[in-house]
């Protein structure tokens, strides 16, 4: 295999892409962010709907998400667009997390048009600088892989997820980091994961996070089964959340659980991590990328085209039919296991090899299409919180 290459960052982390990101700090800055990056090769932007209204109970979680996303090592630099010059807390947090940050305030430019006019030359300068940095030989330990499944079917737990688990184990054995997430889809598998904890403390945290999510949902007075499995999961043959979970957890392979992370929290050591995120595909991806994931693998049974603005996402089909049907949206076919063409082991090795190729620069299907879904994850409905 060719030597892995990437972009070394000043804080010791590695990027596998070299984007210049434009990230709004307020919903009203989303349009300016989009317009600023439009048509500039190498510039990426996302939009979101957070208004930062005073008293927001999720303020800290959302600020950490935005700061972590801005500081992801796949970004050469990030331009944050805020409303007022005085609002610097998120920019400072992003710098603390290793980001190279520029902050532009819309209030200094009379609104959207003036802000775009100010940001574009800044982006052009940063893109020119970024183009001068070259890929360098990169150790496997620089990879932080986000594991995800979305639009699962009954084959997810049989083909793509366990094959991805093999790939994750290979990465961890080589000194890399893997993040298993989507807490509601671990409900029912918590005992298995806790038993693999590297320390008793990690084991306690595994149980705490998973049962905590379950009871938070129960407190809402709703049945988990209302949303899980989703209508598409059920059409795909999944009958219960436990069945879905046992399949979902297989993405993490057999490696010991080295750590448990809060939403958007960066790992402190290599190895398999569990991050506490919702099962919502986009909120989960954003949480892992904000936690520093510079690479992602996403298995799908029903087929889904989503990606990330800054982290390459390798899509893996659980069955050959959906791989063929969604031609161009999916990168790899783990249905080959069912077709007798690959074993779990050989498919796992194939996924691992492709992940390294993607890290070295090969574009994934969602990158080619320009998918850049983004979502802000909340723990509390603002209405519920404000009405006490």
């Amino acid at each position, binding site marked *: 295999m060719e030597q892995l290459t990437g972009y070394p960052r000043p804080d010791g982390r590695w990027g596998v892409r070299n984007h210049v990101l434009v990230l709004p700090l307020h919903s009203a800055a989303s349009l300016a962010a989009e317009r600023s990056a439009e048509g500039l090769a190498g510039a990426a932007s996302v939009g979101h*709907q957070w208004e930062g*209204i005073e008293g927001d109970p999720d303020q800290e979680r959302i600020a950490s998400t935005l700061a972590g996303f801005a500081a992801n090592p796949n970004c050469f630099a990030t331009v944050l667009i805020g409303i007022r010059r005085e609002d610097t807390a998120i920019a400072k947090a992003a710098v603390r997390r290793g980001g190279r940050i520029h902050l532009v305030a819309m*209030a200094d430019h009379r*609104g959207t048009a003036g802000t775009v006019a100010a940001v574009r030359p800044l982006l052009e300068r940063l893109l020119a600088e970024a183009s001068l940095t070259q890929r360098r030989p990169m150790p496997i330990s620089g990879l932080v892989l986000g594991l995800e499944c979305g*639009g699962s079917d009954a084959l997810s737990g049989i083909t793509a997820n366990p094959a991805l688990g093999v790939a994750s184990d290979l990465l961890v054995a080589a000194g890399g980091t893997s993040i298993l997430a989507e807490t509601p889809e671990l409900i029912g598998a918590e005992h298995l994961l806790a038993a693999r904890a590297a320390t008793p403390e990690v084991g306690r945290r595994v149980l705490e996070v998973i049962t905590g999510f379950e009871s938070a949902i129960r407190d*809402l007075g709703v049945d988990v089964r209302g949303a899980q499995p989703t209508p598409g999961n059920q059409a795909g043959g999944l009958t219960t959340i436990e069945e879905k979970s046992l399949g979902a957890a297989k993405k993490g392979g057999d490696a010991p659980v080295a750590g448990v992370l809060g939403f958007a929290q960066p790992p402190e050591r290599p190895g398999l991590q569990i991050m506490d995120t*919702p099962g919502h595909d*986009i909120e989960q991806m954003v949480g892992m990328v904000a936690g520093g994931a510079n690479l992602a693998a996403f298995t799908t049974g029903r087929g889904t085209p989503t990606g990330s603005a800054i982290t390459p996402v390798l899509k893996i089909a659980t069955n050959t039919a959906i791989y063929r049907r969604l031609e161009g949206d999916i990168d790899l076919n783990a249905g080959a296991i069912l077709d007798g063409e690959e074993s779990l082991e050989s498919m796992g090795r194939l996924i691992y090899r492709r992940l390294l190729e993607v890290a070295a620069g090969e574009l994934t299907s969602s990158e080619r299409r320009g998918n850049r879904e983004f979502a802000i994850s909340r723990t509390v409905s603002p209405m519920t919180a404000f009405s006490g």
Partner: protein
Amino acid sequence: MSVTLRGRRRRDGRLGARNHVLVLPSVVCANQTATLIGSEPGAVAVVHQHGCGQVGDDVAHTERAFLGSATNPNVGAVVVVSLGCETIQGRRLARLIERGGQRVAFVGIQQLGGTFKTVDHGRLAVGRLRAELEADGLVEAGLEELVLGIAADGATRAVRELAEAARIAGASVVLAVPEGARGDWEGAPVIGYGQAAAAGISVVEQAGEGTEQHLALAGAGAQVIVSLRGPGRAPQGFATGPVLAVAGDPGIYAALEDDFDLDGSSAGAEDVWRRVISVFNGEQTASEKRGARDFVLHRIARTM
């Protein structure tokens, strides 16, 4: 003064101030496909962050928000873009929109076989619906056909005076004000989220706060929204309708002048009301000029 409105007469009899084809993803996973379809001339694509992993009453609440935006008279036709495995099933949503009297087309990514095929089908649907829209003729009508939406943080004097001016002129007024901040309107008729505005002044329930309120007002049938935010708040628009953004204090107005329509510290209710009429009749608001496509869903439960 005799004032008339000019708008599109919809098949259900209501009057539209704009003539949009809305491209509506039923789930965040269809955002990119919807955006690609929305590059077709005459279409407005929205993006949002939900439609999946939702539970309980929150599902129905989001579905009502989609339905309300899709059947607002400023929209003449809708293309629903679905992934296929989402909680809020796109096909069901398209049926509800059709039952609401709206022209609608449905495209599904999993059903049609991926992003590119879905974009092709969606673009063809936009072109076809665009032609059908011409059947909704431009007509003149009286002020009683105007539904004015007011989005606010509380029942301030500016809100009261504008609502009163509109009511006296014969328009219906629908207010989105957070619960507990309704002041004089604690006793006003309350309409459910997604229900049509009542004659006179009514308050929409569970409208949320900030830009979320724009969807609640669109769902009540408002053709023009006036945003009367408190001091320091940044201006936002709405994807498929005009929003007149009135600054809450002179400082924020000066800082973001290009994105506001009026400074609330100098513009009175009559100034705002006059602008409402000219905006209904085609004058573009600041958010329309800059192309803002704000579409913020109000949630009543956390994501799964």
